[in-house]
């Protein structure tokens, strides 16, 4: 048993001694290093090891969720005393218990491949060299004379969590995580200083895109923002770049939770089993993707992870049902939240999909906006490019899209075979017909 699991198990016992009938404890420890580099030198280096515990207490049907970074033994005792006392002031809630241990059973023993054996090779010098390499690549592009500033970020971490419950669950997860990003600011003759760039995250260092490629592409993106203007207010085809399409998917996920349904805050209530969206829309929750950014063997409640379709050919197949709201809704739990999301069945990539659009907008970034999860109405700021006769045309900014989520996904007319690999949401390029744009 690891030291961390021991911490979790001891805290479970302590919580029970203090009066909790049941308890779940997650102990974590993480080593994090982040380097920010700007215009030829280090801007900021932060390095630390952080640790703490999260505790869910079930005190005679009364529920409290607490966390502390103060793990001194006498402080922890006092904290749990206080937390149990706080829980006792609450109203008992018959739905609050730990999950049935049957839900813990059947856990896969697959190796998710989340730990890079070469993590230890990342030295301070190596990080600086990479940050500089990213900047040099960004500055090596034709047209770089209008660059005002280049900021690059290089970060890595090694995190472990261990979870234990009073009804027999034990689980551990370890991952290494690496990320890089480049942000390039350029001078626009009109006085604006637009910036853009690229980033990527991965469990394995070697899976990050090459620094040269990332730097160059970042500057190209920033230069392409020069001269951006708002476009016409009209209904057009929208092509959404794979790396930003998760913004649209994320708006759906909020309405897919059991809490939203139980609290009457979901436009998807009562829609499971119905063909709500366009036939091209399929979304699979797959916790077992090797090296996946959302991969896991069990979820936050300890429920054994399973692969399941969320949307299949436009039909809503399942919701994210955690144990508590599942009890309230008399529904069997699935899992509390998304792991990796896959969107199979697509064809082509961004450039090919643009070719099929006569008059539209390519969205390469979102800015603000929100979705009303109760009604599905959305309104989001976008930037990108006009598409004219199958070609990427002038840059577009200061523009907005609006509509209803159901209508949007019904008009998903094309899906690419180019999933974005550096996120748990592996969204491909997506093409939507008849989206309301607002600009001039």
């Amino acid at each position: 048993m690891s030291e961390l699991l021991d911490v979790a198990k001891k805290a479970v016992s302590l919580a029970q001694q203090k009066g909790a009938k049941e308890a779940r404890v997650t102990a974590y420890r993480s080593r994090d290093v982040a380097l920010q580099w700007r215009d030829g030198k280090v801007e900021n280096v932060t390095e630390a090891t952080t640790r703490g515990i999260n505790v869910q207490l079930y005190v005679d049907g009364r529920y409290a969720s607490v966390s502390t970074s103060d793990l001194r033994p006498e402080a922890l005792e006092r904290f749990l005393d206080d937390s149990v006392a706080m829980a006792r002031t609450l109203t008992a809630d018959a739905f609050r218990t730990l999950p049935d241990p049957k839900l813990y059973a059947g856990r896969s023993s697959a190796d998710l491949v989340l730990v890079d054996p070469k993590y230890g090779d990342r030295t301070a010098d190596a990080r600086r060299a990479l940050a500089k390499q990213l900047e040099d690549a960004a500055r090596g592009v034709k047209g770089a004379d209008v660059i005002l500033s280049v900021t690059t970020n290089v970060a890595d971490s090694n995190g472990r969590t261990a979870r234990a419950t009073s009804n027999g669950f034990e689980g551990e997860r370890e991952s290494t995580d690496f990320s890089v990003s480049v942000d390039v600011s350029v001078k626009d003759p009109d006085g604006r200083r637009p910036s853009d760039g690229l980033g990527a995250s991965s469990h394995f260092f070697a899976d990050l895109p090459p620094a040269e490629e990332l730097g160059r592409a970042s500057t190209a993106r920033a230069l392409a923002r020069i001269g951006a203007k708002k476009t016409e207010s009209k209904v057009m085809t929208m092509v959404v770049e794979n790396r930003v399409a998760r913004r649209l998917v994320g708006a759906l996920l909020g309405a897919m939770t059991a809490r939203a349904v139980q609290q009457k805050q979901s436009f998807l209530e009562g829609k499971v089993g119905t063909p709500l969206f366009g036939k091209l829309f399929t979304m699979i929750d797959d916790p077992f993707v090797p090296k996946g950014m959302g991969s896991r063997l069990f979820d936050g409640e300890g429920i054994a992870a399973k692969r399941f379709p969320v949307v299949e050919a436009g039909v809503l197949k399942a919701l994210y049902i955690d144990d508590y709201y599942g009890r309230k809704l008399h529904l069997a739990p699935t899992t509390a939240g998304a792991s990796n999301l896959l969107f199979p069945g697509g064809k082509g990539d961004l450039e090919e999909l643009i070719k099929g659009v006569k008059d539209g907008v390519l969205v390469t970034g979102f800015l603000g906006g929100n979705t009303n999860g109760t009604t599905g109405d959305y309104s989001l700021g976008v930037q990108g490019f006009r598409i004219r006769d199958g070609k990427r045309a002038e840059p577009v900014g200061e523009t907005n899209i609006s509509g209803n989520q159901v209508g949007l996904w019904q008009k998903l007319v094309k899906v690419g075979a180019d999933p974005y690999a550096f996120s748990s949401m592996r969204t491909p390029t997506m093409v939507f017909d008849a989206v309301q744009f607002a600009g001039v």
Partner: protein
Amino acid sequence: MLKLATALGAASLAGSLGCGGNEAPPRIGGAPPPVGPKPPQAPPQAKIVYFARFGVTESLIRDALGVALAKGGDYADVFFQHRVGSTMALEDGEVNRAFASVDLGVGVRVVKGDQTGYGYTEELTLEAIKNAAATAASIADGPSRDAPAIFRADPGPGGAFPARYLLKRGWEDVSPKEKLPFLLALNERTFKADPRVKKVSVGFSDEHGAVLVADSNGRLVEDVQPMTSLYLSCVAEDKGRREQNGYNVAGREGLDFYTEDRLARMVREAVGRTVILFDAVQPPAGEMPIVMAAGSSGILLHEAIGHGMEADFNRKNTSIYSDRIGKPVAKPFVNIVDDGSIDGARGSINVDDEGNVAGKTLLVDGGTLATYLHDSISAKFYKVPSTGSGRRESFRFPPMPRMRSTYMQNGPHKRDEIIASVKKGILCTNFTNGQVNIGAGDFTFYVKNGFLIEDGKLTRPIKDVNIIGNGPKVLEKIDMVADDLAIDEGGWTCGKNGQSVPVSQGIPTVRVSAITVGGRKA
């Protein structure tokens, strides 16, 4: 990308802080019994009082700074923080869940030129702190410098530290049982207010704790920083349709913040803002004049200019306001302020997280761009005094220039006159979130409630529409400013580079002559 949101935007209580106790006044969560006097409800002071219970001494700080300066940093500071909060929440008629957390730790920062090294630890032992200091020290590469021999107060030109949030009773003395009636009453009154209300949720949060900053110049200050917020959310049903909305209030205040007036307003606003959505029509799409109602419409300033005036972006040459100090950016009657000094405001601070007294900073003075928001690094770069804007989310982060309470001062027009002046446009009254691209200047804010203005009159309600503009262009287009400044009482949180800090905002009624409304009817 910089984001602003209210508590209402978030449906969950994840990340809420704190710990409570029993009938007896609970102790400071997680800490051993206090030695000596109770935690002070005191103005900032230049001695170790609060943190004494954790074994923090001047000698320990001196040792930590000694290690931090061992490689020749220009400047070093240590930032101790203890933050204890709790949230009690009501759903389906019962207060049946509570959340608590204790955050305790110290961050050590070393600055060399404009480069920063940073380390932190949750263990307040000399060895752990020295390790964090050694990590931070590695940003520099030179001969060792000495730590200060003595520590002193530096309250700045005012001569004394301000006291902007002294509570009669600290939250550590308020038992969970005392909070329950507020949640239950809001629930009951919200259901009574309108038969269409079908679901109500309420969350009561409070926070107590303190920060201690000591630096290589021998300055030391400790500040006790309370916070509280209360949100009320409801779902209503009407003829098979559903709508959700709510209201929330927040401040560096105590239990007496929750007056009968305030609670009644919460219920009235939460229900009113929800049921009016049933009458809402599709908002229009395209460029048109908008009127921003007094109060939370200050979100316009936060996004259109506030972030762009944070000096780090200007020092890096990446803000659309870089090189524009002293230049006209708005009509002469436009005056915009970022102010840390409003008593009890959520965005207020006595001292910033570098120990500088936070004052009132004029961003736009008579239509002219006046002063950036500075932390100590940018202040040194621009050779000006810090504006006391160096803030951080917690001891896990180095500080950077941040807003506090951002608002516009009163102007020469009247509200009714402004609305009457608009032939076809919208009035924006209530918001959930906003965002800005600093360099391009494009910003957005999401309007949850508003009205159509037709021929100078408010006609139909509208809802759920994002508005998008460009900072400097929109500032130029603010062509009417009323005399009804209101600072919003809502619980706003601002995100920048992965750090969240509490802020406030306000504005009088203003008109923007043209901006893009992201509606659905062209």
